[in-house]
């Protein structure tokens, strides 16, 4: 994950993308894969590359849940919002995670060390209720276990 991308780097990265060929979303995905998020500069560079307005690019960025407009946190708990998880106490897990981390869903700490994000069901429902901790499934959760994980992520003993 690189630091704040420069205009020149971004121009090179998106040089081959064309709006007319359906490349807006793929370009945004590539930018986010490279830098972890889509910065203000990236929105402006991409708009110029695609001969459109930053407003249109930002319209897409804000519509799709996967795009971030600030660097991702170092550690992240992605909470599964699926029905199998919900039926096994998923919403209580969300509540406990939010209070433990003192964050709303899709929020992150001011220093960027940890965050909490809403995730969608990917059909690994035998592991319900689950979260993804730094990309790895932690399944068959209890609320107590979720609190312990959140404290660990937050750096509390």
């Amino acid at each position, binding site marked *: 994950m690189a630091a704040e991308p420069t205009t020149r780097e971004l121009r090179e990265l998106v040089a081959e993308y064309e*709006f*007319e060929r*359906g*490349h*807006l*979303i*793929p370009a*945004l*995905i590539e930018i986010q894969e490279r830098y972890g998020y889509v910065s203000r500069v990236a929105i402006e560079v991409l708009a110029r590359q*695609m001969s459109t307005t930053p407003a*249109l690019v930002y*319209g*897409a960025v804000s*519509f*799709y*849940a*996967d*795009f971030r407009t600030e660097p991702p946190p170092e550690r992240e708990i992605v909470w599964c*919002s*699926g*029905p*199998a998880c*919900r*039926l096994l*106490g998923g*919403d*209580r*897990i969300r*509540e*406990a995670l939010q*209070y*433990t981390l003192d964050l709303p869903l899709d929020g992150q700490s001011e220093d960027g060390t940890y965050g909490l994000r809403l*995730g*969608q*069901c*990917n*059909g*690994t*429902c*035998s*592991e*319900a209720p*689950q979260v993804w901790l730094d990309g790895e*499934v932690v*399944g068959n959760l*209890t*609320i*107590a276990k*979720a*609190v*312990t994980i*959140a404290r660990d992520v937050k750096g509390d003993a």
Partner: protein
Amino acid sequence: MNDRFTAIAGEARSRWEAGRTGGREQVSLCLDTSSLAQGGAETLAALEEAIASRGLNVDLSTTGSWGFCWLEPTVSVRSAAGTRTVLYHSLTPDRVEEFVQAVLVEAGEFPELALGVVEGSPSQQIGMLEDHPFMQGQIRRLMANCGQIDPENIDHAIAKGAYEGFVSALQMEPEAIIELMLESGLGGRGGAGFPAGRKWDFLRNATAEPRYLICNADEGDPGAWVNRILMEGDPHLIIEGMLIAALATQAVEGYIYIRHEYPLAIERMNVAVEQARECGLLGEDILGVGKKFDLVVFTGAGSYVCGEETGLINSIDGYRGMPRIRPPFPAQAGLWNLPTNVNNVETYANAPLVLRHGAEWWSSVSNDDAKGTKMFTISGAVNQAGCVEIPFGLSVRELLETYGGGTPGGVPLKGYQPGGPLSGVLSAEEADLPLTLAPFRERGLFLGSGGIVFFDENTSVVDLCTYFLGFAEDESCGRCTTCFQGTQRAVEILRRIGSGGGREADLEKFEDLIQTMAWSNCLHGSFAMTTVKLALRYFREEFEILIREKRDPTRTLPGMITYEVTSGGDTSLAEAASICPTEAIAEEEGRFSIIDELCIRCGACAEVAPNAITVRDRFV
């Protein structure tokens, strides 16, 4: 036949055969998303290590899913002589050493983890896989290769017959292909069941060029993963289906739109497209017959309404994925305002089967209402969260009991939800409905794309409604006031009812919302209230008790309960106090109590001190 394909298939088959007749055991580990979630990657590493450290001459490969999603990682072992293949389950990394020793070194078997014999004869300890209760009654056509081939190796797919349906379609006029599809009775598998042949015919009759195909692999209904199983297990079946559709409609380019939550499916579809291109099955001059068709795998970026076909089209076009106002329909003005056909993954995947085996064979299972087989995923209050392929018409109860293994702990079933968050809930008394289109349509909902979520008596229906309406609210695209404001209002009212503030007039307000939201442009808004509508039909009493008695019969809604220490000296309470995320458990001289104002009702304390903490009604 096409000479070039005959040559390609011949080579593919000989490579596949060479791999199977080399006198080595073949170990095939299922590595799909469910397996990965259960440690599949670690099992693979452990197998590689155990095989290498013993210097065993064994072929190790990976496959898609057999459907036993709750028992991953599954692994099949084919004997060196090629006479016997046994499928095993739950091969966690810690079991790999003893497994390798018993099965590969001593050339024995491992009955403890055996699911059944795939090829060969049964033994005293291991029966045939087809006799396994989970496999009985299943008809594996779409899933025929799932678990049995390496999805990243086109030779395997071709050896099993892939692209033969497409090659026979090459000999047919577009009208004849469409006629065959209509004869089969294949209906769209995304939920609506609209005849695929008719949809293709709309595109065939379009006036503008070029024309496009889209495969809707957005599978956004939580609790549905049938498309994932196919993409991760047999991606070439989907490509072949799109090729057949391209011949029938004269489309020159296709997009496979996959949600970003499915990275492995995206990877495997990309590999398959690349391999098909290398074989000359995609590109400028397919198999030398002068046909042009190519595919792009397009990754979504997180939006449920992009599963609606015009929202999906806007998304590829580079806009917010807001469903369009129809007409014009995609067949007239779709991608870049050019003629486009959108089908679900499973719809395209059926086309090769029709072409290979004929319409009569294909439609010989199921009933007059819906033809062919259907894949379902089972989740929620079930013992076995898995994926099956069955004929239409089996009852919901059979699905739950036979394949889902019943409800956990034998808690009685309360109801189920077919077809995703917009579809609605039905009560257990409707569990004898056959899984086919008409009965659900008659009840005001739809069978949907294949996800069936069961819930038991411990579930609050008001909580379910809050959940599904909250989902609809989050995912509303914002075009229609009826939808984005309507879902907000519905959630507000449901939350109020669920925290003791319900009013008699709320039930009428729901009726108003049901009416006005039905005016929304797309199904997202017009069907969002189905859950509430059906919940009021089947579970009205639960709403009434909440509103009139201020009591939640399930004692699960956080707003309707309190936690109370009933045995203040219990030793487990110290742990409960330390786990409480809001420090709501106070200690005074060794005795504990809960400060109600601080309690968020998460229930962590009751998990660690079940004998000392009791849940009580908040208002009674």
